[in-house]
């Protein structure tokens, strides 16, 4: 479970997050949908602990990660949050092979070598990238990079999985088939996830619930059917643009 309460964040005087309150239930996949610049990535970075909120609190599985406890400011470091993060352009380490990328988190936690090998192999098989395990990221296709990034994030057995537009860097042609595949993989995992996208079709197909973000705030939260059939005024306008761009979720 992830709970953000009244989270605010400014960069250089510009309010990026005005007041974010959001709950993601245990083992659910919540899609965070919204236009570019709404603050979706910043929200993920705050959950991951990569940046600190100016105000408000972040709770993951009943543990306070950011906020105040008895007047003390709390900040749990990113590596202690058990968060897996798939970045928008995957951010694979360019100087490491696929297999080194995936085992990085395990080695950094000083797991026994045998265990590291075993788990890396399982993950390589799980995301079907075994044939490319000794390749470097620049030798991979977009889809292979994406699966490597996913495996790297899953290696540390995270309780929370954050995905920032995991399909945006791919060609339109392969996007649809990879979406189906990604859904299958995510469905097999017992993990609480936030999935950021600006594509309504993607959100509709993949999510348990969605939250629509406007500039710096959450505009509406609910199941896909709820949000699409009874949108509030901001969401209606956003959906309207989506339909206008040929993104009609009803299709």
């Amino acid at each position, binding site marked *: 479970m992830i709970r953000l309460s009244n989270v605010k964040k400014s960069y250089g005087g510009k309010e990026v997050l005005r007041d974010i309150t959001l709950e993601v239930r245990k083992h659910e996949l919540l899609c965070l949908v919204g236009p570019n610049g709404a603050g979706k990535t910043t929200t993920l*970075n705050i959950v*991951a602990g*990569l940046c600190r909120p100016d105000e408000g609190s972040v709770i993951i599985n009943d543990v306070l990660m950011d906020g105040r406890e008895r007047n003390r400011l709390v900040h749990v*470091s*990113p*590596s*202690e*949050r058990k*968060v*897996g*993060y798939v*970045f928008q*352009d995957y*951010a694979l*380490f*360019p*100087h490491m092979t696929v297999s080194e990328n995936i085992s*990085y*988190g395990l080695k*950094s*936690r000083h797991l026994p070598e045998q265990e590291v090998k075993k788990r890396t192999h399982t993950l390589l098989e799980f995301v079907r990238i075994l044939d490319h395990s000794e390749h*470097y*990221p*620049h030798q991979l296709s977009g889809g292979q990079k994406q699966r490597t990034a996913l495996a*790297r994030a899953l*290696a*540390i057995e995270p309780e929370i999985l954050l995905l920032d537009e995991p399909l945006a860097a791919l060609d339109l042609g392969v996007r649809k088939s990879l979406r189906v595949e990604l859904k299958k993989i995510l469905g097999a995992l017992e993990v609480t996830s936030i999935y950021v996208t600006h594509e309504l079709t993607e959100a509709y197909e993949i999510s348990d619930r969605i939250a629509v973000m406007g500039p710096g705030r959450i505009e509406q939260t609910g199941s896909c059917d709820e949000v699409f059939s009874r949108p509030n005024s901001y969401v209606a306008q956003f959906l309207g643009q989506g339909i206008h761009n040929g993104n009609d979720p009803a299709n």
Partner: protein
Amino acid sequence: MKASRILGLSRFSNESTSNVILGAPSLVFLFFIIIPLAAVFYNLDATKVILELQNPQVLDALSLGAVTASLASFLSFLFGVPTAYLLATRNFMGKSVVDAVLDVPMILPPAVAGLALLLAFAPRGLLGPELRQLGIILPGSTLAVVLSQFFVASPFILRSSKAAFENVDKKLVDSARLLNPSRLGVFLTVTLPLAANGVVAGFVMTWARAIGEFGATLMFAGNLPGVTQTMPLAIYMLMAEDPLASNVLSAILVATSFTLLIMFRLLSSRKKVRYHDQA
């Protein structure tokens, strides 16, 4: 094309005319650099080089130069790399001032740098009495050579490393921070390897600058054969009494610099091929 059309020169603006217009100054420029370099090697043959390599003063200058330049580069690495990382990743009050001050040695005339070092660290200088109490007298010592080279050459590794650290994609560091509990671990496994080419290139440039250092060394350390006389000082001193020795030393320096420059270029281009080919 466009500019010539505006100037009404369109009938001259075919490809070959512009090639000549651009090529002529480039050619003159190139020859102005190449001719003196070639002249250094013109009078030399293997027997002369081998003969001079038995001259103790030449040998001393060679080994002293190589050792002091290596020590100065090592010092620059030791202080320059952490400082570069600090400047590239942290914000603090007066950062731009610190940044500018650390660049000063690069634009300071070396003779002035040498005089400044004297005024600061010579026995009668600002910190002279303290150093004397510790039994350290710098002018006339090999340590002074190292310090002169360090003072003048350190900005190269600082600049190059800072740019390299700034160029490391923040998302890669963020990914590592999520996976690796140790901050030092993140630095050693991700940040430093990704910045390594820039740091090594900076080291190479620092070494090249240090081995060629003349002005500051002459002013601060002096010109004692075997103790403070590095290659450039020997070249200058031997010019009158033993022009051949001076010539051989110059040739060695030219060859060394050229090798270093090629290394530097290879390092810079390898980075592009390996890491920026990620589309």
